[in-house]
């Protein structure tokens, strides 16, 4: 390299070079665009939380949790029936869906490296993409119509159908994240495949699967559409699985579309409670992963 060349190449990295200045300008512009996009993603969440707190916080009191919905136009009341109903149906839906989903995920991860697995994986993804209102209609035809009765059980089944594909794919992914060296260690100790899966792979993937369960649970807790034609809603407290039952998202819908001021306020309050619940569950999901860093790549 001649001295002249060296001087020219140093020039490349200084403000004197027009090419350098252009690159620098593009760099700044693109960085600004990315920051704006990132901000645009978070702004709705911030605004939602802001409005929920502003409109809902005032209506949060003991009555909200301890009283059932008031009769139209009478003021006061609470949403106890919806809280209890949501807890029951989300709980039952999770209980029904989780074993199926984990079983399906284990199958996909351990026996799904073939054509059957590819087809099943595709079908699970399709199921995950089906609109929740369609799931509600399906369960309406499957359970509600034959029974001639809106039931909490039907609502729980609808929620389970929404949970299964989400949790199944998360389970599969978490199992595939378990390092191959751990499987080999188990095989080398003379463990057959099923024992390796049950005793080593599944326990190692469990924190990740629990996180997935939390996220899926948070998702179904906020679903109104699949419950409309199944659990229907109920302004009285009911714990009977074979009658109509209330749920938070349903109650929000009915109260928000109703004409009374106390209903509107309670709808805001319920929305706040629901969002805080989902936020809490998501945070819990994070701490599960954070506390047990077991999946090491």
């Amino acid at each position, binding site marked *: 390299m001649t001295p002249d060349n060296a001087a020219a190449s140093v020039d490349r990295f200084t403000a004197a070079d027009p090419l350098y200045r252009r690159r620098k300008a593009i760099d700044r512009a693109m960085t600004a665009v990315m920051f704006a996009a990132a901000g645009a993603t978070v702004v709705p969440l911030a605004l939602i939380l802001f409005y929920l707190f502003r409109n809902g916080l005032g209506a949060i009191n003991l009555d909200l949790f301890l009283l059932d919905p008031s009769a139209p136009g009478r003021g006061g009341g609470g949403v106890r029936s919806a809280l209890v109903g949501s807890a029951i149906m989300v709980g039952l839906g999770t209980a029904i869906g989780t074993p199926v989903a984990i079983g399906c995920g284990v199958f996909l991860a351990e026996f799904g490296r073939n054509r059957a697995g590819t087809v099943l994986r595709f079908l699970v993804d399709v199921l995950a993409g089906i609109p929740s209102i369609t799931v509600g209609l399906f369960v309406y035809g499957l359970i509600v119509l034959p029974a001639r009765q809106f039931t909490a059980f039907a609502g729980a089944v609808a929620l389970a159908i929404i949970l299964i594909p989400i949790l199944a794919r998360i389970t599969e992914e978490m199992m595939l994240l378990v390092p191959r060296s*751990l499987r080999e260690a*188990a095989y*080398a100790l*003379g*463990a*057959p495949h099923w024992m390796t899966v049950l005793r*080593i792979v599944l326990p190692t993937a*469990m924190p990740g699967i629990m996180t997935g369960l939390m996220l899926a649970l948070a998702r179904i807790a906020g679903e109104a559409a699949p419950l409309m034609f199944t659990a229907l809603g109920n302004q009285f407290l009911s714990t009977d699985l074979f009658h109509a039952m209330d749920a938070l998202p349903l109650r929000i819908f009915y109260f928000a579309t109703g004409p009374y001021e106390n209903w509107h306020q309670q709808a805001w309050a319920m929305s706040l409670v629901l969002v805080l619940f989902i936020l809490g569950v998501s945070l819990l999901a994070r701490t599960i992963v954070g506390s047990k860093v077991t999946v*090491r790549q």
Partner: protein
Amino acid sequence: MERPELIVQEPIVQAPAAPEPQRRDFFQVGTASGRVERAERRVSVAVEDVSAWYGSKLAVAGVSFEVLAHSVTALIGPSGCGKSTVLRCINRMHEINVGARVEGTVRLEGADVYGPNVDATRVRQRVGMVFQKPNPFPTMSIAENVAAGLRFMKIGTKSEERDRVEEALRAAALWDEVKDDLNKSGMALSGGQQQRLCIARTIAVEPEVVLMDEPCSALDPVATLKIEDLMAELAQRYTIVIVTHNLQQAARVADYTGFILLEQSDSAGHLIEYSPTSDLFTHPRDKRTEDFITGRFG
């Protein structure tokens, strides 16, 4: 404890007539430690014309050698020559890869581990394996890790299990360091301790043969030395086959050494030379062995 049988249907004593262990000239020559001379000269593992494929790719071609009981045998060779594949053929770990295939015969105490009706998991209970990277089970405590193999096989009561855990940890020279922390996670240990934990886990099920696939390559020199010392002790009770890319290590620990090299003709690993370690390092019979041990390639 009853020794798990290799062949499910028929006990091993009735297995097809075990060939009389062959004695070759070079077995008479002095070995690295002289240990094998004192021990009974019995062939523990016989690898006979073994070839291994990954899918359609031939990785190892026609490898044959015999491993004497209670000896340390090293397989050396440049990276990617197939020495680990040879090792994994001995305890049928090669076949867990999708599309992997093995041809040839591997005899364990005379019985073909690839014979019909042989359960691969039984083979692996008798031929343990220690891997390159320490891989303790992260969801288990130190004690549970050591007991894992026993639990897989459902052998022993709780108190027997405790005894076996202590015995294995002592044999792996780890007991004094962890005896107060048996319920802590194995992941909290240092790399060298983790590897000794894996050795304890392997020998807790009392295998006959312990395969070690570059067991020190992820460890620092002090931890390496500890493992090497351990190998000499373990050879009193077990037969050890070690794969290493570290020539000095082979020279230090092994009674017999095999040199494996990728041949250009079929780009598969071949066993170039197999001799007592001292012979292989001082009078290599093959030019390529000489080139390798003098550092001309690999």
